């Protein structure tokens, strides 16, 4: 049966005012036309609006703005998957298969990282693949998080009375393992053992945005089966993975996750709630004198969970927290890597970059990995996940003691 959410649209045009892409790209017909208006026409003829769907960033700001609860971004994402003209090429395969590329790259990370940084490879990728040469690729870790976990952490996790599962996602596994390791450290200090899911596949967000819906759905089924099997909270450190698992699975891929949706949570929300209920106690060192500019990523804004991140950060003594006005950084995952999108990507991010510079902070905090690449590349400011900031500021011994961890 049709998903009729699009008919809640009352054509108020609000979404169009908050679309970062329509603001800079005259070829994009905007969220209203590509989304609910288009959906209505596509019931008659699938080819409608086909040509314009590729411009959508999937930032979901239209959904946050919509007074009618229309899942505009999901509608567009779904139409894109069903569109006949939108077929992934080699570039899309490479960018979207974060999982596969990660497993290939990590064993050779010193070489791969060096190669990715070379001008000549950047030019080659630009020319052959259409990946913009101005982009800095995130570097690969020398050992995946999962490998490290099995080697170093797995054994000790079972001793904790309380257990949670961790959906680490690709970035924390292949690229930035400090985040995943910090997360384990933090949870352990709070008295929680961290377990990995039976099988974890890439959440599929990049597959969805690059037109590979079938593969995304296959991976999604595996993930949901593992999450079901876990039967305990499954925590994440990536906002985008969280949003994909919770919202895009049912709305875009048609995977029913109603039974486990509430189990999937951003770790920050979980930790805050436990702190508030007294089940977790945090002790921080008092030498963390920092001004932190908090950037609410698009998907965090959509989740509506930035309140937990900021409240946790505010608990760190000595932290001067500035919450930046939430605006899109422009990269939107693999989107900004594509040559044809680079200029738009940077134009969209300009406002945020200016705000970051104005805030004159020591560090920028955000949960989104691709925002991190974009902001670091475009402003030179260091960007950290709040989990890392919390872990760094944590008085581990004191916290362990408070939570009764021996």
């Amino acid at each position: 049966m049709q998903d009729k959410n699009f008919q809640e649209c009352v054509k108020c045009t609000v979404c169009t005012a908050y679309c970062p892409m329509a603001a800079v790209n005259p070829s994009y017909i905007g969220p209203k036309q590509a989304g609910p208006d288009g959906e209505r026409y596509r019931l008659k003829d699938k080819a409608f609006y086909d040509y314009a769907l590729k411009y959508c960033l999937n930032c979901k700001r239209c959904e946050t703005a919509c007074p009618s609860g229309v899942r505009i971004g999901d509608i567009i994402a779904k139409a894109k998957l069903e569109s006949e003209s939108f077929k992934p090429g080699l570039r899309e395969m490479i960018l979207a298969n974060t999982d596969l590329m990660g497993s290939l790259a990590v064993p050779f990370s010193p070489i791969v990282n060096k190669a990715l940084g070379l001008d000549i490879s950047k030019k080659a990728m630009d020319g052959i693949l259409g990946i913009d040469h101005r982009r800095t690729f995130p570097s690969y870790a020398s050992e995946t998080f999962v490998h490290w976990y099995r080697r170093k952490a797995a054994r000790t996790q079972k001793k904790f009375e309380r257990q949670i599962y961790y959906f680490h996602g690709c970035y924390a596994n292949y690229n930035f393992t400090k985040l995943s390791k910090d997360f384990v450290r933090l949870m352990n200090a709070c008295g929680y053992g961290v377990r990995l899911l039976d099988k974890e596949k890439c959440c599929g967000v990049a597959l969805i945005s690059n037109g590979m819906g079938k593969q995304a759905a296959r991976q999604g089924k595996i993930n949901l089966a593992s999450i079901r099997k876990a039967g305990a909270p499954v925590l994440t450190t990536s906002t985008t993975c969280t949003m994909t698992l919770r919202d895009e699975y049912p709305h875009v891929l048609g995977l029913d996750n109603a039974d486990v949706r509430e189990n999937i949570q951003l770790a920050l929300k979980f930790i805050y709630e436990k702190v508030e209920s007294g089940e977790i106690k945090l002790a921080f060192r008092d030498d963390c004198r920092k001004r932190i500019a908090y950037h609410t990523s698009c998907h965090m804004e959509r989740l509506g969970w930035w309140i937990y991140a900021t409240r946790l950060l505010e608990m760190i003594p000595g932290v001067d927290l500035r919450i930046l006005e939430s605006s899109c950084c422009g990269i939107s995952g693999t989107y900004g890597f594509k040559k044809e999108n680079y200029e738009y990507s940077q134009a969209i991010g300009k406002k945020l970059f200016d705000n970051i510079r104005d805030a004159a902070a020591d560090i920028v905090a955000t949960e989104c990995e691709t925002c991190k690449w974009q902001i670091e590349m475009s402003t030179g400011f260091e960007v950290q996940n709040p989990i890392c900031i919390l872990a760094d500021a944590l008085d581990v011994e004191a916290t362990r003691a408070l939570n009764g961890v021996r």
Partner: protein
Amino acid sequence: MHQKAGKNGPSFKEDATMRFDDIIIGGGLSGLLCGISLAESGRKCLIVSQGQSTLNFSSGALDFLKTKEGESFEEALERLPQEHPYKKIAPEKCFLLRAEVAGLLDRAGIGTFSDIRRNHWRITPLGVLSQTWLSLEEMAHFDKEALPEKVLIVNISGFLDFSPSLLASGLAEQGVRSEICEVSVRETDTARANSSEFRSVNLARVLDGYAASRLAEAVNGKIGDCDFILLPAVFGLESDTAAVRFLQMLDKPAALVPTMNPSVPGIRLQYLLKKRFKELGGTFLAGDTACDGIVEEGKMTALRTRAQGNSLFEAENFVFAGGSFFSEGLIAGKDEIYEPVLGLDVDYSGSHGDWFSPDVFEEQPYMSFGLRTDADFRVSLKGRTLENAYAAGQILSGAAPFRNGCLGGLSAITALRVASMIKNE
């Protein structure tokens, strides 16, 4: 559509909480003004806002109350039917609240024009002169006796949500002559290549930058013998000064006329109010929907929202400022009208056939449906007043906003009234 979140999700989770002093449901004009007023006195507030508000369709002015020729606001208030929300506020208090609204906007960096004692006139996109009480400073506002003689009406080439011809014919009814012209600069022509998104907001994004001075030059070249210039309100989206700065570049007195939606002045008003609220330490949760709450012994204790799942928001006071039907502060089903969060008592009458008038321009009965409140704007549930839950703005019953000309003003006045009730406790 309005599923209670409490029924979703697994059972192993217990509720968690986040505490505030006051929680406001609705992030439109009334929610924001109420939140700012409370935050200004140091209270910790949360605003939960389901999407954008009707400020996105604003005329750039707040109508307080229609008055007859020579009539004072106090006399007009006296005339209102008993069920009108203004009737719950003493006229002297209402006078002070009007002053307070203007002061609050000023502190938020919003320049306005108003006279606490009487209406002035705003110009609608059709050129109709309409009574209003408070206008954003860049918006066209006049005394009826002091209308310009000949107006240059300028449009940006290709912009469809503003029609100089319709505006001109309305002005002609007032004896005002006009010239019409279209101007463009490189940037507006580029933006125009977008066949569906050449809207007020995207124009403003372009015109708030360097293009403004060239546009001003183009306009100045067309002034001729006109003594006043009117342009569509496509300036000053986020900056509080861009619109005024642009108007100052023109060689004759000039002002802006609202466009069809989205409304740039309304969005800016909202942006600046939101900014002010956050600067005062307020938490503005956008895109989340209040969906359930806990009421214990005549008091509301907690609110549940759709995005937060098992996390509850607790507070001392709650304000229902979720707007009317459009904003889903109220829901109209086929047979009943209800308030979606708690199922509060709603004033409405008759069955579906009685809710609407066949004449679209008559005051529609459904527009006056809303929450039943006591003299202090406290809401009630199943006949019992909730001692710490209030309502403000369009969600209130009895307003008849078009007949009484109180769209916007009602939201502002009742919001501040509720804030003062909460603060005085």
